[in-house]
C-alpha cells in the first residue's frame, strides 16, 4: 500500500507542476478552452487518485477548486488574474498537504480556508446562488465526470479506458406525439464521446401511406466513450419503455483486440441479426465487394450495409489511434536505477578499453575483431544510456515563470519572461543542479537589473522589463543565457565597493570582465539595502560554486543602462566524456577532447629559437603554451621531440606540452573525493585499460594558475626595479 501511496505522490507532484505550467499559460491565453481542460484534468486526477489512496483531505480540497474550474469550463466565469493567483496558491497548498503527509511541516488550515472563501467569491452571485448554479450543472457533471475534454472528444492520453458500443435505437412510432425529439437524444450521445450515427430509413413507407406525425426512422450508433453502459442507458431513460434499444460492446479498450483487424462486414451483419448465415454464404460466390453483393442480392438494404461499414471503419480508427498511443507510451523508472545503469556502463567502458588494449597487444586477428565489435556496441550503449538521462531544459524554464511572476508582483515591477530553446537537452543531474544558480541569477536580474516602470519610461525604455532565458547547444557544451534589459552592471561602483572592502588594491588595472567577476566574491554586494529578495551577496557565490561543480563556466557581458547578459557554459554530461590521453614522463593525463584543436610537434630547436619564451609557432600564429612537466614539477628527462596539444580555452588558444600523445580515450569521470577537493588544475580521474588511474586536466584552471603565477613574478620584478 505504501508503495502505491508513493507512486501516487510521485504522480501528484508531477501533476502539480503540470498544473502550474498550465495555469501560467492560461493567464496568457485566458480564452483557450484546451488549457482549461488541462487544468481541469490535472485536478481531477489528483482528486481521484488522492481519494483512492487515502489522501482524503487533498481530494476534498481539490474538489472545491475543481468545482470552480467546472464553471470556467462552462464559460460561466472568466479567467482573471485573481483566479489564477488563487489557484496557484491552492496548488501550493495541495503541495504542502502532500509534503505534510510525509511528516513535513503541518498544513496551514487558515490559509486553506481563505483560499476557499476567496474562490467561492469568484463564483457569480452569492453563496445561495452558488447552490443554484450547481444544480443545473449537475447533468453536465454527469457527462463530463470522466475527464473528457470540453469538446467531448476524448483526449489521446485517456484513450486507454475507452469502450466502443454499438447502439440500435428504434423509437416507437408515436415518439413525436409524446413530445420527445429523438435527435436531441442522439446529440446527447454525441457529447459523451466519439460518435457516428447512421439513420436507417428502410421502414419509411411510400408517401401515400406516410403519417407525418410518426417516426419511421431508426438509428445505428457507433459510440466510443469512457462512459459505462448504464450512463448510456440513462440517456434513453425516458423513452426506454416503448422504444427498441439494444446496446452491445464491440470494443472494450483493448482487451478484445485480436491481431487481425476488425471483423468482416458479413460477420458484423450476422452478429447484428440483419443477415442470416445462409444468405451470406449464397452471396459469397461472386467477385464484387461484399456490401454491394449483399444489396444486389436483395437480402439486405443499403442503409444496413452502410451502417456496418461505418462500424468497421470506426472501430479500426479507434484501434489505430490506440496503437499509436501505445507505441508512444513511456514507462516510469526510478532515477536510482538509471544512475546505477550509468555506473555499470561506465565500468563496461573501462573493461572494454582493457579488452581493446589486450587485443592490440596480442595481435590475434580473431580477438581484434571481437574487440572491435565490443567497442562499437559499448559506444552505442553508452550513447543510448546517456540519452536516457537527457531531459529537455524546458521543465526548469517553466518553473521560473512562476518565480518571475511572484517576484515582479512583490517588487512592483513589470517583467515579462521569454524563453528560447526549451527543448535543449541536458543531463538530468546537470538540470537538477542548475536550478539553484538559475534562481539566483533570475532574482538578481529582476531585483537589481530591471528598473521600476517609472524609471524605465523616463529613460526611454518600455515600461515592462524583459528577462530572456535561452539554451543552445554548442559542441559538447550547452550555453544558457540570462539576458535582461535592465540597468546593467556599473563597473565603477563595483570597483569602488571592492576597494572599500579591500578586495583589490588601488593601483591594479582591471579589465571590465575582471571587474564584473568581482560580483562572484562571497559577501560582495553593491546594494545598500538588503531586501527580502537579494542583496546579501550570497547568491552569486552560490552561482559560481554551483556552475564550477558542474565543470561549467560563467561569462558576464553588461552595458550600463542597456542590460546584462550572463552566459553559463555547461558540459552536456557529467559521467563520460571523450578524452585525449597524453603522457608526461610516466604519468598519464586526459584532456577533454571537446577543447582539443590539434597536436603539433615541439622540437628542441623550436624551444631554442623562442629564446625561452613559451610561445610556439602554429601554422604562422603564435600560441602560448604551458609545459606540464614544469608546471607539475615532474623530474625526468625531456624527449627530443615533445608534443603540443593545442586547445581552445575561454576563446583563446593555449598549448599543453606533453611527452607523448597516446590517443582518444573514452573517459569515465571519477571524482577524486573530498580528500583532493581543493587541488586545482585537475578536475577528476579516470581508470585506464590497464587498471591504472589517469588524471583529467582542467585546462581553464591550469591556465588561470599559470597566469597568476606569472603575474606574481612580474609584480615582484616591478618592485625590485622601480
Amino acid at each position: 500500500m505504501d508503495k502505491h501511496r508513493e507512486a501516487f505522490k510521485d504522480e501528484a507532484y508531477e501533476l502539480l507542476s503540470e498544473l502550474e505550467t498550465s495555469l501560467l499559460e492560461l493567464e496568457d491565453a485566458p480564452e483557450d478552452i484546451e488549457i482549461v481542460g488541462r487544468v481541469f484534468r490535472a485536478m481531477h486526477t489528483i482528486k481521484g487518485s488522492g481519494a483512492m489512496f487515502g489522501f482524503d483531505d487533498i481530494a476534498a480540497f481539490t474538489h472545491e477548486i475543481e468545482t470552480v474550474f467546472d464553471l470556467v469550463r462552462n464559460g460561466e466565469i472568466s479567467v482573471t488574474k485573481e483566479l489564477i493567483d488563487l489557484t496557484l496558491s491552492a496548488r501550493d497548498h495541495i503541495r504542502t498537504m502532500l509534503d505534510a503527509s510525509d511528516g513535513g511541516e503541518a498544513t496551514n488550515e487558515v490559509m486553506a480556508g481563505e483560499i476557499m472563501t476567496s474562490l467561492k467569491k469568484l463564483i457569480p452571485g452569492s453563496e445561495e446562488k452558488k447552490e443554484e448554479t450547481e444544480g443545473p450543472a449537475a447533468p453536465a457533471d454527469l457527462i463530463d465526470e470522466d475527464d473528457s475534454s470540453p469538446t467531448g472528444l476524448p483526449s489521446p492520453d485517456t484513450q486507454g479506458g475507452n469502450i466502443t458500443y454499438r447502439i440500435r435505437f428504434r423509437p416507437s412510432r408515436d415518439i413525436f406525439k409524446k413530445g420527445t425529439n429523438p435527435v436531441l437524444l442522439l446529440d446527447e450521445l454525441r457529447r459523451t464521446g466519439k460518435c457516428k450515427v447512421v439513420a436507417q430509413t428502410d421502414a419509411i413507407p411510400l408517401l401515400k401511406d406516410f403519417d407525418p406525425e410518426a417516426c419511421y426512422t431508426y438509428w445505428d450508433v457507433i459510440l466510443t466513450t469512457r462512459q459505462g453502459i448504464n450512463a448510456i442507458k440513462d440517456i434513453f431513460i425516458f423513452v426506454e419503455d416503448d422504444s427498441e434499444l439494444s446496446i452491445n460492446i464491440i470494443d472494450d479498450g483493448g482487451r478484445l483486440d485480436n491481431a487481425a483487424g476488425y471483423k468482416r462486414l458479413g460477420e458484423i451483419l450476422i452478429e447484428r441479426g440483419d443477415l442470416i448465415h445462409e444468405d451470406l454464404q449464397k452471396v459469397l460466390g461472386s467477385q464484387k465487394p461484399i456490401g454491394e453483393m449483399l444489396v444486389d442480392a436483395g437480402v439486405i438494404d443499403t442503409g444496413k450495409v452502410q451502417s456496418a461499414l461505418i462500424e468497421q471503419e470506426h472501430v479500426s480508427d479507434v484501434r489505430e489511434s490506440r496503437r499509436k498511443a501505445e507505441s508512444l507510451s513511456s514507462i516510469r523508472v526510478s532515477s536510482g536505477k538509471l544512475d546505477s545503469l550509468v555506473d555499470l556502463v561506465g565500468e563496461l567502458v573501462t573493461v572494454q578499453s582493457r579488452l581493446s588494449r589486450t587485443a592490440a597487444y596480442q595481435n590475434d586477428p580473431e580477438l581484434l575483431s571481437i574487440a572491435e565489435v565490443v567497442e562499437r556496441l559499448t559506444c552505442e550503449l553508452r550513447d543510448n544510456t546517456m540519452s536516457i538521462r537527457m531531459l529537455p531544459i524546458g521543465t526548469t524554464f517553466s518553473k521560473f515563470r512562476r518565480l518571475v511572476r511572484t517576484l515582479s508582483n512583490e517588487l512592483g515591477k513589470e517583467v515579462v519572461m521569454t524563453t528560447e530553446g526549451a527543448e535543449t537537452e541536458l543531463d538530468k543531474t546537470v538540470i537538477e543542479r542548475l536550478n539553484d544558480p538559475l534562481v539566483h541569477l533570475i532574482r538578481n536580474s529582476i531585483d537589481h537589473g530591471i528598473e521600476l516602470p517609472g524609471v524605465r519610461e523616463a529613460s526611454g525604455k518600455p515600461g515592462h522589463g524583459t528577462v530572456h532565458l535561452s539554451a543552445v547547444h554548442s559542441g559538447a557544451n550547452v550555453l544558457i543565457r540570462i539576458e535582461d534589459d535592465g540597468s546593467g552592471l556599473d563597473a565603477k561602483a563595483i570597483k569602488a565597493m571592492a576597494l572599500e572592502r579591500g578586495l583589490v588594491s588601488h593601483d591594479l588595472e582591471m579589465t571590465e570582465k575582471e571587474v564584473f567577476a568581482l560580483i562572484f566574491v562571497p559577501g560582495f554586494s553593491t546594494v545598500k539595502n538588503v531586501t527580502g529578495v537579494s542583496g546579501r551577496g550570497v547568491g552569486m557565490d552560490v552561482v559560481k560554486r554551483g556552475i564550477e561543480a558542474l565543470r561549467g563556466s560563467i561569462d558576464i557581458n553588461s552595458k550600463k543602462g542597456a542590460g546584462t547578459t550572463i552566459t553559463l557554459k555547461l558540459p552536456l554530461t557529467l559521467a563520460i566524456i571523450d578524452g585525449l590521453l597524453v603522457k608526461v614522463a610516466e604519468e598519464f593525463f586526459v584532456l577533454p577532447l571537446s577543447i582539443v584543436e590539434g597536436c603539433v610537434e615541439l622540437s628542441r630547436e623550436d624551444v631554442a629559437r623562442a629564446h625561452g619564451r613559451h610561445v610556439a609557432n602554429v601554422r604562422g600564429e603564435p600560441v602560448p603554451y604551458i609545459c606540464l612537466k614544469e608546471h607539475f614539477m615532474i623530474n625526468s628527462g625531456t624527449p627530443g621531440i615533445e608534443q603540443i596539444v593545442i586547445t581552445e580555452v575561454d576563446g583563446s588558444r593555449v598549448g599543453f606540452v606533453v611527452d607523448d600523445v597516446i590517443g582518444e580515450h573514452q573517459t569515465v569521470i571519477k571524482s577524486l573525493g573530498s580528500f583532493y577537493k581543493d587541488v586545482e588544475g585537475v578536475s577528476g580521474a579516470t581508470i585506464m585499460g590497464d587498471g591504472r588511474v589517469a588524471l583529467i586536466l582542467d585546462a581553464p584552471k591550469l591556465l588561470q594558475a599559470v597566469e597568476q603565477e606569472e603575474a606574481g613574478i612580474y609584480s615582484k620584478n616591478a618592485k625590485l626595479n622601480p
Partner: protein
Amino acid sequence: MSVAAMIETTQYLSFTLDDEVFALDISKVREVMDFTTVTKVPGTPEFMRGVINLRGSVVPVVDLRLKFGMSKAEKTVNTCIIIAEIPLDGDTTVIGALADSVQEVFELKTDQMEPPPRIGKRLDTDFIKGMGKCDEQFIIILDIDRVFSSGELTVVHESGRGMLL
C-alpha cells in the same frame, strides 16, 4: 562470555612502519591490498602519494611513513595498502594508508591500554589513542580518524596550493 567482557575487548590490526609497530581499530579497516601503481596528483605534498584504482573507484593513498616524519622507503614484497573508512566532513571517505607490512589482528582489553606517554615520542600525541603491549612489544595504537581529520587535511590543502602556485 559475559556481555561486559565483549564490550571491553577491541580487535586491532597491527602493521609496521620502519621498525615500529602500530595498530588501528579493525572496525575501521575495510581491507588490505598489495601495493599497486599509485598515480600522483600534481601539486600535493609528498606524503599524499596519489590515487589508486580500487575495483573501479578512485581511492587516495597516504604514505604513513612520510606523514609521521620518517624517511621514504623503497617498495618491498611486504609493502601494502590498508584501506580504511574514515569520517571526513560528515561523509564516510575511503582512504588508503601505505604501510611497510601488515602483521596480525589481535585483541586488547581496555585496561591493557596505557595512555600515550607525555614525552619521548616522535609522534604528535593527538594521533595516538594509547599504547598497547603484545608479546613483550609496545604497540602504538593510532586514532586513525584524527590522522585524517579535516584539520590535518586543511594543512594538506594549503601546502598543496602553495606548491602549485
